[in-house]
């Protein structure tokens, strides 16, 4: 029997050796491939919670997202994420939940969580010196005063919409607010059940609080698109100036149709002579004038100009992904006239609205908008910092200056559509363009109000784009919000 027992012992030995080899393979060699399996939530957790997550701060060093030790005694996750300003900065920070992230939390996740390979050397030094490793701090370009003004103005208006402010000379995003918003703090809970409940509530909310309208919402630009149309016209006709007389009929019969394009209330434009200076037609936002100009310059020129202003770009990231603003070449000349005044299928994001003015303000050069100023490791050394870059040059500086003058007239000329709040700006010259876009089938919905502007006129420091859904008349609903952002930002300078 001992011979058989010896053989059984060898069989047992083989069984244990097989187990040992297998666990060595599993835990020694297969760890990386298992960690990269898509459904491996442990790897996700580990990456998220290995180190204290870095903070997100504004350009003026206001903390808008940070981590603190978890309060719950049984909490399996060491750090609790919190957002001191809640909904105000939600479009910027996004959220960081047990399972996923959005916004800067997602775009800079590797650096915030401390797992990005660019932090490896610093982590190694931390390991040697015995310091606890922290994720990197991300500084965004947002100015806290401008952001507060933007969000508070939106919230005071109570209508869904968004505001984006850009520094025209660099492309820094100074404010980015969306309303209604949500508090990312409630999504930072470590209680999975509660998270699902809150998440479902937010998803079911008809007012779409999770939607970052500033980057993801697209709306008809309405008359603000006349900046593009004018730019195309002035570029195509080098001899013309803003004082050139252009056709300005009371009614424009659209080619190949019996449809008639009219001005806002069917009124005659400027003085009813059928001719008007371009600047006056722009200031009073004559649809007939710009419909005709659109027919004359043609859809492909409008398309090229719109693209140069940043539209039709599916890949724009700041580093958050930005929805594509569309100028679709219309199938007929009649629809081209509509597209020239920001109707037909034109859609823009609030960011794009700000980019229209930013390009004009910066002498025709459109800087690439960006949100992340710099990333600082826990040892205060800079990991990355963003240098401004040119996105496009839609117009020459001459044309930009001309369009700028026209935008100033919108606000300063007594007949301009934005004149009504000129007095409220207290010494700051604002140049802008209002837009009131018809929405819904047969113009049944409330108009979307749009406004794009820059200030100060002589030395532009800020360009603002505002879109208010169902806001009605652009000058009334959107422009005052832009003025408040400008005042907050310039008053802070």
């Amino acid at each position, binding site marked *: 029997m001992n011979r058989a027992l010896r053989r*059984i012992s060898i069989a*047992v030995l083989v069984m*244990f050796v097989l187990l040992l080899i297998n666990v060595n393979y599993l*835990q020694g060699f297969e760890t990386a491939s298992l*960690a990269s399996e898509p*459904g491996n939530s442990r790897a996700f*957790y580990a990456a998220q919670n290995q180190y204290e997550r870095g903070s997100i701060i504004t350009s003026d060093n206001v903390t808008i997202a940070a981590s603190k030790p978890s309060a719950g005694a049984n909490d399996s996750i060491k750090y609790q994420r919190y957002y001191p300003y809640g909904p105000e900065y939600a479009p910027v920070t996004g959220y960081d939940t047990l399972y996923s992230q959005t916004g800067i939390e997602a775009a800079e996740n590797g650096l915030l969580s401390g797992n990005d390979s660019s932090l490896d050397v610093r982590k190694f030094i931390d390991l040697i010196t015995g310091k606890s490793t922290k994720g990197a701090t991300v500084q965004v370009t947002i100015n806290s005063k401008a952001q507060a003004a933007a969000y508070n103005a939106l919230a005071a208006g109570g209508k869904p919409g968004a505001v984006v402010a850009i520094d025209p000379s660099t492309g820094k995003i100074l404010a980015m607010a969306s309303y209604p918003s949500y508090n990312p703090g409630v999504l930072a809970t470590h209680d999975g059940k509660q998270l699902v409940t809150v998440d479902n509530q937010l998803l079911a909310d008809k007012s779409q609080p999770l939607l970052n309208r500033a980057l993801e919402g697209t709306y008809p630009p309405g008359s603000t698109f006349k900046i593009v149309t004018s730019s195309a016209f002035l570029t195509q006709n080098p001899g013309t100036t803003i004082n050139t007389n252009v056709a300005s009929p009371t009614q424009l019969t659209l080619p190949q149709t019996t449809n008639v394009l009219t001005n806002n209330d069917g009124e005659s434009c400027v003085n009813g002579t059928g001719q008007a200076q371009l600047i006056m037609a722009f200031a009073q936002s004559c649809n007939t004038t710009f419909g005709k100009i659109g027919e004359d310059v043609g859809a492909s020129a409008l398309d090229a100009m719109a693209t140069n202003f940043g539209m039709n770009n599916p890949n724009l990231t700041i580093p958050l992904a930005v929805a594509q603003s569309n100028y679709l070449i219309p199938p007929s000349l009649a629809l081209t006239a509509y597209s020239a005044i920001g109707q037909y299928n034109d859609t823009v994001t609030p960011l794009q609205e700000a980019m229209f003015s930013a390009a004009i303000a910066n002498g025709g050069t459109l800087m690439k908008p960006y949100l992340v100023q710099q990333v600082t490791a826990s040892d205060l050394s800079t990991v990355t910092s963003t240098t401004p870059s040119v996105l496009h040059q839609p117009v020459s500086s001459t044309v930009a200056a001309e369009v700028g003058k026209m935008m100033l007239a919108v606000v300063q000329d007594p007949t301009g559509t934005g004149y009504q709040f000129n007095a409220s700006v207290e010494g700051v010259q604002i140049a802008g363009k209002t837009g009131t876009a018809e929405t819904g089938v047969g113009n049944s919905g409330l108009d979307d109000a749009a406004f794009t502007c820059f200030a100060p006129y002589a030395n532009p420091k800020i360009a603002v784009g505002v879109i208010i859904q169902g806001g009605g008349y652009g000058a009334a609903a959107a422009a005052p919000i832009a003025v408040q952002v400008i005042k907050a930002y310039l008053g802070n300078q």
Partner: protein
Amino acid sequence: MSSITAPTPAVDPDNPLMPGGRSRRRTELIMLVFAFALVLFAFANVGFSLKGTLPSGTAEYLGAFIVIVLVAHLAMRRFAPWADPLLLPLAALLNGLGIVMMYRLGAQVNPATGNPEVSASATGIQILFSAIGIGCFVAVLALVREPRVLQRYTYTLGAIGILLLALPALLPGSISEVNGAKIQIAFGSLITVQPEEFAKLALAISFAGYLVAKRDVLALAGRRVLGIDLPRARDLGPIVLVWAVSLLLLVFESDIGTSAVFMGLFVAMLYIATSRTSWLLLGFIMFVVGAFAASKLVGHVGERFDIWLHPFVGSNPENNAFQLVQGLYGMASGGLLGKGLGGGQPYITPLVQSDLVISAFGEELGLAGLMAILLIYGLIVQRGLRTAMLVKDPFSKLLAGGLSFMLALQVFVIVGGVTRLIPLTGITTPFLSQGGSSLVGSWILIALLARLSDTARRPPPRSIQEEGLTQVVTLK
């Protein structure tokens, strides 16, 4: 002090396996202190990792654990003084680690559910079952003073074993079903017993008794075909019966793991008894054919194979293979040195407290810890097999070999399953899994091995006649 008279050597030079006259109970006690220290460190590790302090109740839990294990040690001194000194410390260490893991799982909330994977009372219950298990351990040592006594109950224990195995299949699913397998008997909602844990032991004893009686005929009679000694058809009865029962287990209880352990146990004992390879081949072929047929007939079994072969394919990771895959992720995240007790996320894996407890150890103690645990099991098996070699009487030999092999097979089936060496089947991990039946059954197994090793290592009574002739001088 030197002496011209040669002392009795500590080890008989003619039989190096035969130890001399030292009971080694003090070695056992020292080894137990190591086991206690390891369990204390593990406990403290959990507490400091999860809460930054020693866990509340450390003194009570650890004190109770130490007391019951010391009771076992005293029982060894009293009833089995010559037993192998490693069996008790190794088993106690595993038992203690299991208690620590219950504490660890109960002390941390799974964020997805808002609750810990086991209730906070699981630690206390596991200690209570350890006490019951050690009570049975002491009872077996006290009642079974000579292993051969068990041979008398060959058929009684066989009948009890088969009845215990069959009981869950006969009972309605509401009483016996758990996670798709009919393997338990529920007395109300609180107490459930898994009869297979005891059936295995009864059957191991029964097989040993039967095979000792029949081994000559099973070993010698038969014809030689193609170099293999085939048994006579009339001698095939028992193996066919066992095969049939194991297949019924498969089909009616969907319990492929126990079925494999059961069949493997019988075939191994048959081989030890007869030394005939043909029995091994026959048993192996019968099991594979039966399992294959069952996998075609019973969806549960076929699914197990699919999970094993394609855990990451299609919807498997989120559905059928979720448990296996999460266990693998856990062990992978542990890597070489583990996340440390309390540092991982074992709660993500379903049933981590029972079938997949080894993945929790892999995750938190890493490859190093998992290998150590496997080596502890290996050592227990090795001590058992060594006992089988040492012991003289064939029944004891068979029983020791069978029990040791069964333990090895059980570890192989569950650890191999969890680490995806073989298809995962739900059986308990001896000493580590949550659950009283398994713990009590494992302690009875250790008691039987201790009794057998006590018999094996007990020095033969000194002949009075020789005493007058040889002067025995013990140094020191």
